[in-house]
């Protein structure tokens, strides 16, 4: 294994053990440093891959970027969170250590998923993320947290069970075509795609879409998502939304690529449309009636996952490239939004939207950045999500699917209304008279500025290496590589 990649995996893995043993004041600094080191390693590997010298393929590289962005910033944010906010039922040191250890373990598992091309290995890594994430979600010990963790592990485990059935059916499809006792790697399937049984491959893709789609938060399998995002610690919510959803999507895209190459793209695109439009619908309309800040962001995640699925479904190169860029933009923006929501919720001591106002006045940096995150999630320029949404929609109209593209546009407008309503509600206006104003938490603010740099930067300019990767990854999805 390449040394850079090995470091990216080893750092969070080692920190998962270290942070359990050392005091949390040291553990949180180690986690921040580890997050930045891992992010640096991933970026180096991605740049080398874009130059044709890297150890990854383009699709893996694209789906690794959310890990770099979110884990890199979560570590910094954690320096504030652990010091001030990480108070469990007992408010003790053990809680903080457990939080840091699980966060690093979660990051490690999330890093491994996009590095794998073995379908069974992907399932294993996703299974590990489920277990660790469930422990993180229940960490705060409240009744809501317990219920959310219960729902999450039950629904996600059932989803993964169906996903494993997809792996098994795919394996059976390759039996007889590939050598006996073959490893179920993506490259092996692609090398014999034309000889695979088409019906079996289609069934495998359907099972993978339902199974791993559960973890990706695609409707109608999304029901765990708002609860888990709402009840978990804020950094966990950012990692769930920004990385875990995209990791699950990565596995689905690998299955789709095999199905596209083996049986044509007809079924995969239709199914992507179904779950994509349904997710957009659920996300957009539930956004209109949210009362909880973090649950609002959770429904926004469902909406954006729906848009990505629709982008893949349009099939046109521009739309697919836009969808893949959207994965990266969504990770950065959602991390920024959750960080801001966590800061506001901590200062106002509530997550209820109706009880928060004047966020920009109370927290000048965090409140303002949260407002930008809200604008970005709503799809306004000049942020990255605007660019990728435009690419998806342009690709949709270019592909001749006018009706579907128009429906997608309508649902995006609906989501825009919901997001703008709640974002303006909490950020502008007058704060309560007795609310202290100002903030000095360097780590948290730095993490938000880092995430914001990506959110804004990708709106203004897509670096050439990333363009190369996105184009190549789109070709992989189409089954052409």
């Amino acid at each position, binding site marked *: 294994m390449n040394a850079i990649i090995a470091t990216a995996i080893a750092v969070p893995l080692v920190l998962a053990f270290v942070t359990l043993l050392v005091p949390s004041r040291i553990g949180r600094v180690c986690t921040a440093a580890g997050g930045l080191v891992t992010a640096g390693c991933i970026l180096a590997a991605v740049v080398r891959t874009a130059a044709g010298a890297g150890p990854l393929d383009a699709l893996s590289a694209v789906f690794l970027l959310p890990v770099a962005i979110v884990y890199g910033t979560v570590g910094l944010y954690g320096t504030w969170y652990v010091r001030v906010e990480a108070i469990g039922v007992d408010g003790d040191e053990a809680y903080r250590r457990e939080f840091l250890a699980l966060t690093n373990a979660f990051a490690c598992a999330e890093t491994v998923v996009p590095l794998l091309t073995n379908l*069974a290995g992907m*399932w*294993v890594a996703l*299974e590990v993320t489920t*277990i660790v994430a*469930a*422990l993180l979600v*229940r960490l705060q010990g409240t*009744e*809501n947290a*317990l*219920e*959310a*963790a*219960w*729902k999450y*592990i*039950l629904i996600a*485990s*059932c989803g993964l*069970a*169906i996903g*494993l*059935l997809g*792996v*098994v*059916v795919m*394996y*059976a*499809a390759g*039996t*007889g075509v590939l050598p*006996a*006792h*073959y490893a*179920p790697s993506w490259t092996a399937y692609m090398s014999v795609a034309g000889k695979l*049984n088409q*019906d*079996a491959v289609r*069934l495998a893709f359907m099972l993978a879409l339902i199974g791993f789609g559960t973890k990706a938060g695609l409707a109608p399998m*999304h*029901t*765990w998502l*708002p*609860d888990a995002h*709402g*009840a978990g610690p804020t950094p966990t919510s950012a990692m769930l939304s920004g990385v875990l959803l995209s990791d699950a999507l990565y596995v689905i895209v690998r299955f789709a690529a095999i199905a596209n190459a083996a049986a044509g793209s007809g079924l995969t695109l239709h199914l992507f449309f179904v779950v994509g439009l349904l997710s957009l619908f659920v996300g957009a309309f539930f956004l209109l009636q949210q009362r909880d800040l973090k649950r609002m962001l959770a429904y926004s995640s469902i909406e954006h996952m729906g848009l990505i699925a629709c982008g893949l479904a349009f099939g046109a190169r521009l739309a697919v490239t836009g969808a893949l860029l959207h994965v990266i933009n969504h990770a950065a923006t959602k991390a920024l939004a959750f960080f801001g929501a966590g800061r506001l919720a901590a200062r106002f001591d509530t997550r209820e939207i109706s009880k928060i106002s004047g966020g920009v006045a109370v927290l000048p940096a965090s409140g303002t950045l949260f407002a930008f995150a809200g604008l970005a999630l709503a799809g306004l320029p000049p942020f990255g999500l605007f660019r990728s949404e435009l690419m998806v929609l342009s690709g949709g109209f270019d592909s001749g699917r006018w009706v579907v593209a128009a429906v997608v546009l309508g649902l995006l407008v609906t989501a825009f209304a919901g997001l703008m309503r709640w974002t303006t509600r909490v950020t502008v206006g007058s704060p309560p008279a007795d609310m202290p104003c100002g903030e000095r938490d360097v780590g948290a603010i730095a993490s938000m500025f880092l995430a914001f740099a990506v959110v804004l930067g990708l709106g203004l300019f897509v670096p050439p290496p990333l363009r190369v990767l996105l184009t190549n990854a789109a070709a992989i999805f189409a089954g052409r590589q």
Partner: protein
Amino acid sequence: MLHQLTVPEAFAGTIAMLLLLVQLSLFRSMVIAEFIRVYAIQAWLVAAICFGVGVTEGWAWDLLLLAVLTIVFKGTLLPRYMQGLVRNISSRVELPARINVLASLLLAGALIGLAVLTSIQLPLHQGAFLPQADLATALSMVFVGFLVAILRPNALAQVIAFLTLEDGLFFGTVTLAPGLPFIIGVLLLLDALVAVVVFGVLVRALVERHDAAGIAVFQRLRG
């Protein structure tokens, strides 16, 4: 002309039938201890199919080892751990059913029919140990596992429904993909172990707070 069953096919077919029948008995069980017994029996049956495939594949050591591990963990240790959980809460455990046994079985029968119809469309015969019924059995067990989880709204019952569903996957992995099982099988074992521990933690917390392992208390969050 009727297909003459070979000995391995007859053996696998019998095991498949027993697995499904045992799983269907979950609809009539009223005591959580019976659920755990059913899970243990299923684990032994899955170990038997694993052993059978191992022998057919030329005494494949990985499959034989997997059979032993299955008996040790899923057939013995995990059921004992769950029995321990039940002993602590047995007086308060209720196993409600959303519909009666007959209606449950009819629904299960419909799902098994769907599984059979789906699987006969797929010519996945090459290399399969149980050519005509492997996918059908695996799919049926997954469907029935889901149905049990839906129709028996009790925390521990849902754990076991999930684990029997996983047994269906285990069966499918061993029979449909004999080159795959060792990694997946061991991880399914570990997964079952961790899942039971995680579920156990949650169930204990539930019991401490609500004096029952029912899921009626989980009504605050609406998805």
